[in-house]
């Protein structure tokens, strides 16, 4: 019988996704898989997705668990016959047809905790044991990883060519034990010098890489000023009074986003991404928001950028509600792929956390060319129309990528933003 083969490629599950890791195949080679059943766990830098089978057929994997490949790379075959495809078999459709379908067909489910590739399976007696893996590890290391609950993909191998060997797993296990021991004794205080040892892995590693990359690859300039938000706060107070009616307690951040929309309209290049040596200026304003999330321990912190899409078309209340639910989704690990990708500008606030008047030099969230970092307001006497007045000043730090944006448009952008914040009626325009 002719074996008609459908190729399944690494789906592009989000706009910013260029590559993905097969964290797990949820079906076995040779299984007859119905369209729509959970097929694989695919991980990107930020999110893990369960994807569904786009077609029905006998499933044969090509890329093993643990391997990271570019979007569009062949991952598996669906065959009409229960055998692996060979040269004589016919192709049902081109490999590039599927990713779009997949993107549409799958309700992407995300988890904040990365799912570990089940590399440990290879140590068992089952079939797929001899498949090559990009993650180099010894059989003993894999077995120990499974037993000690150590995720091998988070380790740095010390064997030849970075191979993960027994001592790496044992060291990780000891450091885990050590860490819990340290955390336990921390309560009793005094003891040893080391309070906790935190592994530079998972989310922490992603943050570290992105920060270093951003600082290495862009020409970042940070500027500081204070905007008088006395009037803005008065307006906000009116909205807060209407909290029950509006269904939300409108925040200063919502006003800030509105003001950013105003300023971006004046200076559109601030709403841009640098992608492959091109400055792509966007019409839609997708507001990336730095959201702190709990770390792996009480000493650690985490950071993710949630994205509120199309804020240019939203009112204050919609922005505020959208922002609140976005933050909740990200913190609960329920963010969708859209929630975590596609930003065109970033807002990174330390307001209410840092001391009044704090100035920062926030690091650009690449590929965005600009970022605004408001912090805790400070009361100052200001001279207004010849009189000294008590004003609430909002400290603002603005970082821009000088590769894309020069001082003149940056200054115009800051002036426009300041204008909008100080004269909040402009936000109605």
């Amino acid at each position: 019988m002719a074996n008609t083969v459908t190729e399944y490629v690494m789906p592009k599950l989000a706009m910013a996704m260029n590559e993905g890791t097969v964290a797990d195949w949820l079906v076995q080679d040779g299984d007859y898989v119905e369209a729509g059943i959970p097929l694989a766990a695919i991980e990107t830098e930020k999110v893990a997705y369960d994807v569904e089978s786009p077609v029905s057929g006998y499933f044969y994997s090509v890329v093993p668990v643990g391997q990271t490949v570019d979007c569009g790379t062949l991952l598996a075959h669906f065959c009409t016959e229960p055998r692996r495809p060979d040269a004589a078999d016919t192709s049902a459709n081109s490999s590039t047809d599927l990713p779009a379908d997949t993107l549409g067909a799958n309700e992407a489910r995300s988890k904040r905790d990365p799912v570990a590739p089940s590399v440990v399976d290879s140590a068992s007696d089952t079939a797929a044991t001899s498949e090559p893996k990009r993650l180099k590890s010894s059989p003993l290391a894999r077995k120990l990883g499974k037993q000690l609950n150590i995720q091998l993909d988070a380790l740095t191998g010390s064997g030849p060519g970075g191979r993960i060997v027994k001592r790496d797993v044992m060291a990780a296990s000891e450091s885990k034990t050590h860490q819990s021991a340290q955390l336990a004794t921390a309560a009793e205080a005094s003891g040893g010098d080391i309070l906790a040892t935190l592994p530079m892995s998972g989310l922490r590693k992603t943050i570290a890489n992105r920060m270093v990359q951003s600082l290495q690859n862009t020409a970042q300039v940070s500027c500081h000023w204070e905007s008088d938000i006395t009037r803005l706060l008065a307006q906000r107070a009116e909205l807060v009074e209407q909290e029950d009616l509006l269904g939300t307690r409108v925040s200063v951040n919502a006003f800030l986003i509105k003001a950013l929309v105003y300023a971006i309209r004046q200076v559109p290049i601030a709403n841009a991404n640098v992608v492959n040596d091109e400055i792509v200026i966007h019409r839609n304003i997708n507001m990336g928001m730095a959201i702190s999330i709990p770390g792996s321990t009480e000493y650690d912190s985490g950071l993710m950028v949630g994205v509120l899409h199309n804020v240019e078309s939203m009112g204050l209340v919609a922005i505020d509600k959208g922002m609140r639910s976005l933050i909740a989704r990200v913190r609960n690990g329920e963010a969708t792929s859209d929630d975590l990708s596609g930003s065109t500008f970033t807002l990174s606030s330390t307001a209410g956390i840092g001391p009044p008047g704090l100035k920062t030099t926030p690091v650009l969230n690449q590929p965005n060319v600009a970022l605004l970092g408001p912090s805790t307001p400070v009361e100052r006497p200001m001279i207004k129309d010849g009189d000294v007045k008590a004003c609430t000043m909002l400290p603002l730090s603005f970082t821009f990528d000088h590769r894309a944006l020069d001082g003149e448009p940056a200054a115009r952008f800051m002036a426009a933003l300041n204008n909008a914040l100080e004269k909040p009626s402009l936000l109605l325009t």
Partner: protein
Amino acid sequence: MSENKYNLIVIGGGPGGYVAAIRASQLGMRVALIEKDQLGGVCLNWGCIPAKALLRSAEIHHLLKAASAFGLRVSDMGVDWSAVVARSREVAGQLSKGVAHLLKKNKVEIISGHGTFQSANSISVSRDGAETVTLSADHIIVATGARARDLPGITAGSDRIWNYRQAMTATALPSSLLVVGSGAIGIEFASLFAEFGVAVSVVEMADRILPNEDTEVSAYAKAQFEKRGIRFLTEAKVTSMEETASSVEAVIETNTGSNREVFDCALMAVGVVANSDSLALEKVGVELKNSSIVINKCGQTHVPSIWAIGDVAGGPWLAHKASHEAVATVEHIAGHSNAHPINRANIPGCTYSFPQIASIGLTEQQALAANHKIRKGNFPFIGNGKALALGDADGFIKTIIDDDTGEILGAHMVGAEVTELIHSFVLARELEATEDEVGMTMFPHPTLSEALHESVLSAAGKALHI
């Protein structure tokens, strides 16, 4: 760079030193190697290689004696000991020349003479007591090896009280031989001379022979050696030895008392002592412990520019350990991206006796002492077709498997060609294969190697031929 300035000076041209020099040269260093005697060191000239050549003669002798069992008739059989020794010397000489060629090919400058430290970066070389040249280098590797240890009051090196050198170049076969020490060297010479009809007695202080091996291996090997006529005195020590014109008189103290015995010759094989004296190491501040140079895991001494490898830096006193330390240390000095300290838990040991003995990793006793929950595998060569065909089916392969992880903690072999089988376990351990991977590996039939496969399978109750 001035004429006498090098990136690296290596003192000693044995299996540690010459390998270090070659690897350093490969990595682009300008290298000088100082050797006071013969290239190849003890291993090539007075140890591993010539001893194996002698043992080969003994092995053939053993086979010829059993010729009729193989359907062969041999007449007028005899031993020409001086020819046996001559062949051994020839093999050693051939290899030593090979080392000289290798060093030359790799552009290593060979400086003949005795090196002593002038400073942490310079060495003065003397020949026949006169200084010839002073060399300096960024790094200096000490690879001066070790020599046979003497017991207090007994100095070996005479016509009748031997160390390994006299034993392998003896002018005639003795009628009787006292071997003091039952480590690899003592046991190999005991096997060699016993095969050629010498009445051999081995004295061992410990309660068993080959005390570094697994107890089951010790016990089995002892019985095999006894079958071949070797006499063993364990928990015994030689308290004094006197050489007369025609014999050696030794006082041997055992549990049952003290006995004076007379032998034709005696061989002292009670371990080695590092050649760390006469290098002026104390002058530059290199630390010693029990005569061995103290190093870190990369081979570095307390003086940053001075390194030590091989026997001079402590046991186990094995050529392959020295060579591996050489490569690891040189790559570390060169900042090579894949430099790794040697894995001390994975140094195989081989004894080329009849039968042969080979081992790697933990013995059963060590594994239990380290709180491992273990399973044991064992397969006797009597169940192996190739061993039967060879007519050499004595012995077994014992494996120690971690019950939780399947890690191969140790392997202990006694029998035909086991020194050529042990590398499978060394490789498996280096790659961290567990019993599952070894179990899945296809070993060719008919070979002795099937026995090691079966031994691992047997630890899981899956052996097929027993």
